[in-house]
C-alpha cells in the first residue's frame, strides 16, 4: 500500500529539509503532503510539483464567515486604495494600503477573528486539514520539521490517528506489520 507521509512545516524555518524529505517519499512511491503557513514565503524553494501543499492560512481564510472577514478587512480596502490611488497619488495610496494591512487588517485577523474562529473544533487547523484531504486523510507517518510545528503536531495527533511520528525521514521508525 502507498505510504502517506504528512510533513508539518508551519514555521517554514527548515524548508529545505522538508522539501528534500518529501521528494524522497515520492521517489520511493509514497504520497507526500506538506502543511505550511504563508506559502508565499516558500517561493524561493523549488518545490517538486508532485508534493501536495496545504496552506493552513488559506484554509482558515476561506472557512465560513472568514470569507466575509477577508472581504471587509483585506479585499475591500485594497480595492478602495487602488481606486483612490490612480494617477499622481499612487505611491501615497500604496503606502496607506500597506499601513492598513500591517496595523489594522493583520492584527485584527490574528488577534480577534482567528481565535474566534478556532473556538469551533471543526474550524481548527487539524480539522481543516482532514476536511481538505478528504478520502486521503489516512496518514502513516507524521514528520515534524520545525519548532513552530511542534505545538501544531500535538493538536494534530488529537484528531489524526497516526502510527508513527518523527523529526525527519532518516530517523523515522519503520512501519510495523499490519500497519494501515
Amino acid at each position: 500500500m502507498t505510504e502517506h507521509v504528512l510533513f508539518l512545516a508551519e514555521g517554514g524555518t527548515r524548508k529545505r529539509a522538508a522539501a528534500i524529505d518529501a521528494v524522497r517519499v515520492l521517489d520511493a512511491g509514497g504520497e507526500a503532503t506538506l502543511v505550511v503557513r504563508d506559502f508565499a514565503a516558500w517561493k524561493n524553494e523549488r518545490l517538486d510539483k508532485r508534493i501536495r501543499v496545504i496552506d493552513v492560512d488559506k484554509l482558515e481564510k476561506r472557512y465560513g464567515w472568514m470569507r466575509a472577514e477577508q472581504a471587509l478587512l483585506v479585499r475591500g480596502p485594497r480595492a478602495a486604495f487602488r481606486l483612490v490611488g490612480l494617477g499622481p497619488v499612487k505611491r501615497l495610496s500604496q503606502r496607506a494600503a500597506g499601513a492598513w494591512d500591517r496595523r489594522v487588517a493583520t492584527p485584527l485577523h490574528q488577534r480577534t477573528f482567528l481565535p474566534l474562529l478556532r473556538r469551533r473544533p471543526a474550524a481548527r487547523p487539524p480539522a481543516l486539514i482532514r476536511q481538505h484531504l478528504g478520502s486521503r486523510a489516512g496518514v502513516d507517518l507524521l514528520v515534524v520539521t520545525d519548532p513552530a510545528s511542534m505545538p501544531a503536531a500535538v493538536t494534530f495527533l488529537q484528531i489524526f490517528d497516526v502510527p508513527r511520528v518523527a523529526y525527519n525521514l532518516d530517523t523515522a521508525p519503520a512501519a510495523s506489520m499490519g500497519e494501515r
Partner: protein
Amino acid sequence: MTTPSHPSPVAVVTPWYPGADHAFRGAFVRAMVDATGPGTDMTVYHCEEWGHRLDGGPIEAAYQSLLSRTHRPPHAIPTAGGARLIHTPVPLTVSPGYAAIGRRHAETLSAVLDGKPLPAPVVHAHVGLQGGWGALRNKAPDARLFVTEHATFLGGVLAQPEAKEMYDELLTRCAGFFAVGAAVSDPLIKAFPHHRDKIRLMPNPVSFDVRRPKPVTDLRRWLYVGSLTERKGVRWVLEAFARCRAEDETLELTLVGDGELRRPLGAKVQELGLTDAVTFLGLQPPDRALDLMREHDLLVHNSRFETFGMTIVEASAAGMPVLVTRCGGPEETLAGIEEDAGEMIDVEEASDALVAGFRRLRDRFPDKIDLGRARHRLESRYGYAATAEAHHRAWFGDTDD
C-alpha cells in the same frame, strides 16, 4: 593495538552531523565516527539545534509531549563505522547566549534519555558548550568524558562570563580535551592557563582509501568546495578565476556548496561573461564532493579563518594540489609539506594574492611539487588508522587485552 577485545560502549554526543538537508554539516564528526567506531559499541546522539523566534514555553511543552511518540524508546539507525545514530532536535530561541544554549542541550538530552545517564563508560562529545555540556550533565558519575572542540565561534563563547565559567568546569571535569588545531587550542590555553596540560591536539580524520584514476597533468579545472559565504572568501575566488582565465581561456571553475552569496555570484558570472566556464553544483553529498576532487585539477580554498580545514586534507588525499590561504588550520595541517601540496597565500580582501599564488603554482607544476609525498605525510597524521589509534588509546588506555 589499544582497542579492548570486547567492544566497549562509547556514546558520542554532537550538535553537528550530516543529514539529507546539510550534507557537509559535521562531516568531520561522521569521519571521526567512521574511523573510531569499529572495535567499539558506539551510539551517536545527534542533538541538532532548531532555532526559532517564538515563545519557547509552548514549544518546549509540545516537545516534551511528543517524546512519548518520537523517543520512547529512542529510535536508532545505522550510521558510519558500524555505529548507531539517535537524532533529536534541540528547539532553541535564537541568540539566548552560549550558556543558555549549553543548558538547553543538557535538558534536551536528558529528556531523550528519560532522565537516565548515557549508557556508556566512555562519552565523547563534540563542541564544548553544546555537545560537551550536554554530555557532562548526562553521563554516568563514573563515566569518562572526552571533548573535541572545533568551533570557529570559540572567541564569542569565551567572551561571555557565564559561558566561560561553564567551559572552565567542563575542562576541570572531563578526562581528556582535544582541539582540532592551534586555532582552537591557543585561545583556550590563553583563557584557561591552569588547564594547559589537559588541552591536547587531535586532528579530524580523513579517508585516504580511494585514489584518483589519473594524476593531475595541468591546472585547468579549478574546484571550490564550501559554503558560498563571505567568511570563505569565495567572491575573490571568482574574481581571481576571471583574471586568470583572461590569460588562459581553457580554465574552468566548479563551485560546490550553497549560501547567501549564491545569487550575487551567479549575477557576477553573467556580468563577466563566464557562464560557459563556471558551474554551480549546489550542495553535494560528501562522497560526490570527493569524487569531484578526483575529477578536478586544483582546489582553491580562500577562507578567512579555519580551525582545521578538512577540505584541504581531503583534496590532498584525492591527489590534487591546493591553493590555500594561511587562515589558521591549513598552516598546521600542511606544516612541512606546503610546497609539495600546493601553494599557500595570505588572507586578503582582494584577488591579487590568489592570482599571484596561482601563477607561482602553475610555474612550479608538475616538476617542483610532490603530491605523493604530501599525501603520504598527511595520511600518517590524519588517516583513519592514526586517528582511531589515538582515540582508542585515550578512551581505553594502552592495555592489550
